[in-house]
């Protein structure tokens, strides 16, 4: 691929796990590729000054993520930012309800309560709503005429509205909801702004939970209150709601945006998706593998000395797995660095692995399977409205993302 100027950000402040190749914003950084070949389990330095182990091979990443001796409880101080002399001495502990940062049995208890709302069957029932939301946004794009920022008119609003739908967030609150959820996962936010945003979100969710306690509706929060109301606290319900939003919004939005960019760069593959509905399911999985929009999982901490593939990670040390590197591991996927619908993306780790494997996968995959073919069919001549080199990528806390995606047709 030709040299581009899609600067990810300056390497100093961006943890290695988030860095991409300087000449191709879809590819992992050369240092990650080197490590996968030569140092597949080795220490690296984080922006905080701490060191952690980075795991880069497909088999090793799966071994770490399925090993109960690695804890998901986050360390008290952020590893991803330089120490902040003006900040509080200790970061607040993981709020109640947010089970992505918990271990069993607490994790199991909360995850089981909410999983009934995420079964494949339940998601199938949401399909008509998702089709409707997608069609509405395509209509609005057609009315507005190009060029538009696809991020703003398509990629961000659709997953946000789907989650609002799932949770039962009233329409009038949805703009504010979207703004706050975007800010919550940004890396480059001043500590005070981040905290203020967090408090606002917390207050909003508290109101939503109180309303559902008083009068439980048919959506996720209402069902949780009806079926588990005595077993779950308000604080847990609030944390859970915040987690679903931050986990499901920016992630899906960026697969939609960066995936569209990928399809614009691969018109032959786009044509297949447009014309052959039966390949869509497979195409979305290959795209998830290739893009790896969530570059790594939450940091893990070894609870005991653990030996993975001959390397011992001592108890107490931190481990990060590169999902992106695992998904591009040539030992598992021949020709891994090419996006090709003829590939077999089976066992990709874009949704993680083990007990924290993405709860929202059935929802995310339905959104993507509905949205891509609908977009490609409505706008068969969809193309970039600016040179590819001008598209700005940015690393985020949870997802690799685009500043904007100007398109026309």
């Amino acid at each position: 691929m030709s040299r581009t100027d899609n600067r990810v950000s300056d390497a100093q402040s961006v943890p290695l796990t988030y860095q991409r190749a300087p000449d191709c914003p879809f590819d992992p950084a050369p240092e990650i590729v080197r490590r996968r070949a030569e140092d597949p389990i080795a220490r690296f330095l984080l922006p905080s000054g701490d060191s952690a182990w980075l795991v880069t091979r497909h088999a090793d990443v799966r071994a770490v993520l399925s090993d109960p001796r690695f804890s998901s409880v986050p360390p008290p101080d952020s590893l991803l930012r330089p120490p902040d002399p003006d900040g509080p001495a200790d970061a607040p502990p993981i709020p109640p309800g947010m089970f992505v940062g918990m271990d069993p049995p607490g994790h199991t208890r909360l995850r089981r309560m909410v999983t009934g709302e995420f079964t494949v069957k339940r998601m199938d029932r949401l399909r008509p709503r998702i089709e409707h939301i997608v069609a509405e946004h395509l209509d609005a794009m057609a009315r507005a005429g190009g060029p538009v920022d696809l991020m703003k008119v398509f990629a961000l609003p659709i997953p946000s509205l789907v989650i609002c739908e799932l949770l039962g967030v009233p329409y009038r609150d949805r703009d504010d909801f979207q703004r706050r959820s975007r800010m919550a996962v940004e890396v480059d936010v001043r500590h005070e702004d981040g905290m203020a945003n967090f408090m606002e979100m917390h207050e909003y969710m508290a109101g939503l939970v109180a309303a559902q306690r008083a009068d439980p509706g048919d959506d996720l929060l209402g069902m949780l209150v009806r079926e588990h109301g005595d077993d779950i606290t308000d604080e847990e319900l609030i944390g859970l709601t915040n987690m679903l939003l931050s986990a499901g919004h920016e992630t899906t939005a960026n697969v939609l945006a960066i995936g569209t960019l990928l399809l614009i760069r691969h018109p032959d593959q786009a044509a297949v998706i447009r014309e052959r509905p039966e390949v869509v399911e497979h195409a979305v999985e290959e795209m998830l593998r290739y893009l790896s929009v969530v570059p790594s999982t939450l940091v893990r901490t070894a609870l005991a000395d653990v030996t993975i593939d001959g390397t011992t990670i001592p108890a107490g040390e931190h481990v990060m797995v590169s999902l992106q590197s695992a998904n591009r591991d040539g030992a598992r996927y021949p020709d891994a660095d090419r996006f090709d619908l003829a590939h077999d993306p089976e066992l990709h780790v874009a949704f993680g692995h083990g007990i924290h494997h993405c709860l929202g996968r059935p929802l995310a995959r339905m959104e993507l399977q509905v949205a891509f073919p609908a977009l490609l069919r409505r706008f068969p001549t969809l193309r970039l409205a600016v040179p590819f080199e001008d598209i700005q990528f940015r690393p985020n806390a949870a997802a690799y993302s685009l500043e904007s995606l100007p398109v026309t047709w």
Partner: protein
Amino acid sequence: MRVAVDQERCCGTGNCVMIAPEVFDQRDSDGVVVLRQPQPPPAHTAQARRAAANCPCAAIKVDED
């Protein structure tokens, strides 16, 4: 082929249901796996095998006989 599931290990991802809906289902209340066909007919054995490989929690065992 004989299939067995471990409901304690299952974390309710639904991967198995997406891959082999004839063989696996999920409980409505908590999303935990339910086995629909402990001995799937030949038409479904390939999917059952794929589902076992794709289970993130190693909750599915497949014995070829």
